[in-house]
């Protein structure tokens, strides 16, 4: 039924496991004794919030990352060193959320991409003539085994719907004898109606003996498909759910559960009673639907929500990026959002979610990175103003010292700082501009525990001096401790607002997951 290789070497593999895997990047654990198993004929789920270690463990299974500790076990054989050739040999194949097809080649060519059927010849493989008929027949056979009877003759890959394209990728994996299929957010690009067909296909594959690891943040899909679910958080396994344990509430609980960390202090200032920032019907379609809320002066307002709830879109929309409608008023003055510089000049500054790609300029020095916003905003059209002077150097220096950023000297490349110090530097950059409203999108993601509490104490100290803060975060417990007030986003809508001193975390999780359930049952 599958590729012809299958008949020659019919080694039936049952289970492949990654056991007690640890992996650090720059001193921070991406995985901490994590484990995941894939079993032939079963669909196993893998869930976790952003940064929980899902993609790291996928790369470990594929042999892309070297293991710091732990091992891979294939049917009882242990491997300390695991590389991509071995992964390929046992038949691990990963399908990523981006659809990797060659758009200008036809469907069948895409199925056999890289390993087409060739006319028997003594020539080296790259210059052999492709046996077009045979190649197409082979691709067709694989597709029909997947239940696709459609004729794709002369149809280019670029004209396929996302669902069909996904199918071609799976066909490609099967043609290469994939025994364990890792699907990384496979439904992210699929419209609702194509998903059902896709799930049927996955179930069919499992029935035929393929082991499947289904990695997704669509919890309802995980619930419907998987017989076992691994939950990762902060690189650790929180649980292995099976049977009745696989329900949305349980999954959310395990993804987010976090012991209350007493090292963070509750804010001890009380914000003004009048509203300072008014957000009216702001939206960023299709994800963020129109929402409105107010922030008081001196307040730390938290926004919580699961992945895909619209937190990041809200942060962008407030800066005027990707906004589909609505307005933001600060001190009763509407802000011109046609240009991000206008928003910055009005006193709203964002510390973006992705530090490496959106916040730091890695090859530039610490000084350049610290002073850039201050110079741009204060000397907008004064290009001839000298920035590289002792005045601005000492200004930057005192800010970095105030936030206790550890660096060797002002010309040190920012890339060489640790994640926590980079984050503090970015916060320092924004504070130099004396913002009225500081928006922090996941300010503590991927930084060590010490830096986390430093980041929070910086924010709280500044709030006492008139700063107003909006924090988007998935770190529920932390946000409950440091915020005055928290609003819950789910599927692009505000589903609740609470006083973190009074609400219990389980109530909040209900708000976050309850709405999640409602939407996903439409599938």
């Amino acid at each position, binding site marked *: 039924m599958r590729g012809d290789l299958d008949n020659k070497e019919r080694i039936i593999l049952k289970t492949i496991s990654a056991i007690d895997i640890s992996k650090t990047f720059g001193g921070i654990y991406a995985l901490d004794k994590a484990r995941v198993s894939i079993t032939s004929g079963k669909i196993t789920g893998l869930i976790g919030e952003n940064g929980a270690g899902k993609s790291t463990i996928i790369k470990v299974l594929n042999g892309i990352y070297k293991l710091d500790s732990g091992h891979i076990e294939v049917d009882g054989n242990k491997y300390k060193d695991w590389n991509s050739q071995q992964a390929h040999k046992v038949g691990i194949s990963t399908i990523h959320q981006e659809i990797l097809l060659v758009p200008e080649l036809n469907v069948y060519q895409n199925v056999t991409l890289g390993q087409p059927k060739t006319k028997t010849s003594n020539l080296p493989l790259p210059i052999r003539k492709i046996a077009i008929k045979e190649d197409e027949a082979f691709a067709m056979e694989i597709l029909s085994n997947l239940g696709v009877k459609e004729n794709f003759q002369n149809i280019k890959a670029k004209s396929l719907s996302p669902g069909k394209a996904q199918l071609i990728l799976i066909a490609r994996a099967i043609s290469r004898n994939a025994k364990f299929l890792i699907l990384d957010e496979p439904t992210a690009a699929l419209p609702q109606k194509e998903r059902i067909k896709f799930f049927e296909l996955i179930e069919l594959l499992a029935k035929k003996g393929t082991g499947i690891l289904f990695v997704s943040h669509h919890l309802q899909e995980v619930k419907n498909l998987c017989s076992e679910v691994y939950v990762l958080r902060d690189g650790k396994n929180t649980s292995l759910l099976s049977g009745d344990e696989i329900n949305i509430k349980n999954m959310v609980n395990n993804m987010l559960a976090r012991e209350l960390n007493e090292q963070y202090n509750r804010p001890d200032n009380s914000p003004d009673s009048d509203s300072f920032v008014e957000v009216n019907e702001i939206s960023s379609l299709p994800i963020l639907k129109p929402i409105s809320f107010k922030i008081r002066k001196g307040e730390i307002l938290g926004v919580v929500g699961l992945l895909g709830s619209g937190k990041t879109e809200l942060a962008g929309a407030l800066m005027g990026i990707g906004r589909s409608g609505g307005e933001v008023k600060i001190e009763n003055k509407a802000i011109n959002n046609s240009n*991000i510089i206008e928003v910055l000049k009005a006193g709203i500054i964002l510390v973006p979610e992705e530090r490496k790609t959106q916040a730091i300029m*890695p090859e530039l020095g610490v000084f350049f990175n610290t002073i*850039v916003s201050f110079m*741009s*905003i204060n000397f907008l059209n004064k290009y*001839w103003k000298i920035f590289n002077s002792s005045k601005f150097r000492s200004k930057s220096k005192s800010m970095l010292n105030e936030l206790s950023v550890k660096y060797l000297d002002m010309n040190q490349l920012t890339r060489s700082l640790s994640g926590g110090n980079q984050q503090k530097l970015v916060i320092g950059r924004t504070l130099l501009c004396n913002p009225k409203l500081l928006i922090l999108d996941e300010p503590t993601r991927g930084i060590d525990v010490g830096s986390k509490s430093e980041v929070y104490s910086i924010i709280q100290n500044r709030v006492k001096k008139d700063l107003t803060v909006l924090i988007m975060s998935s770190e529920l417990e932390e946000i409950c401790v440091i915020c005055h007030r928290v609003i819950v986003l789910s599927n692009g809508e505000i589903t609740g607002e609470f006083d973190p001193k009074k609400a219990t975390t389980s109530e909040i999780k209900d708000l976050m997951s309850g709405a999640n359930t409602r939407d996903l049952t439409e599938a």
Partner: protein
Amino acid sequence: MLNEAINLKVKSIIKFDSFRLLLPILILCGSLSVISPNFLTATNLSNILINSAPLALAATGLTLVIICGDLDLSVGSTMALVSTSSALLMSNFGLPIYIAFGIGLIVGALVGFINGLLSVKVNIPSFIVTLAMMSVARGIALVLSDGSAVTNLPESVTKIASGRLLGLSFIIWIPIIIIPIIGFLLSRTVLGLNIYSIGGNKEAAILAGVPESKTRIMALTLSGLMAGIAGVISTSRLGVGSPIIAEDLILDAIAAVVIGGTSLFGGIGKISGTIFGVLLIAIIKNGLVLLNVSPFYQRVAIGIVILIASVFDAMGRRNKK
């Protein structure tokens, strides 16, 4: 971890230090002066500097553009356009030379400005825009001059080239004065900070408030202006306006920038590096001429230098990972 940081720091000094080219230049000069008695003479050294002045000016402008993450392929054509248009203003319209050259510089800056506008506002990669401009500007220069040199210029045109100050030709003084100004602009002013930031990480720079469009347009405009100055110098030296000057200058300019340690991905680089790159290329060319080597070998030699420089760069990058 501290060790690692110090290590990186040391590497960053080596990488950023434009003076690392000084050693190969000195070795080259040393060996040339031993091999050829004509090398280390005042006339020859002054010739090297005079010959490399247009390249130095154009490559300096190009460095700004490349650090900003763009590319300007049109510098050579801009030189030709500036040369012919200012020569025509003198010969056909009888404009005084300084006004004609002034208008020429404005033309150069305008070419750069149009490059910038199209790259930024219409969102066409600057590689494509300036590739087209390379052809258009050269074409206009050829049309205006009917394909031949514009003669009948006032005699005082060549005075710029023949004038001397403190024993050095004016042609050497012009880059000596202008290039440090550009270097200062890049390393000290807000414009320079903006250029580095956009080249270093465009998305981050925009979120941090750096005016992306204006900065990129300014870098490309400055590049056009610098090419204009190079065009004026060439006109003065030749005593005619020529539509066919600097036809493969862009290759040497990019080579000088790259040899000087500027990253083609943007964000990294210094004017001083580019100047050392220009000198290295000029000395190699001069040396090969003195040694009676066929000029065809010049290209081979420069190509090898580019490769060696890139290999060092790539090794530096790999060590960091």
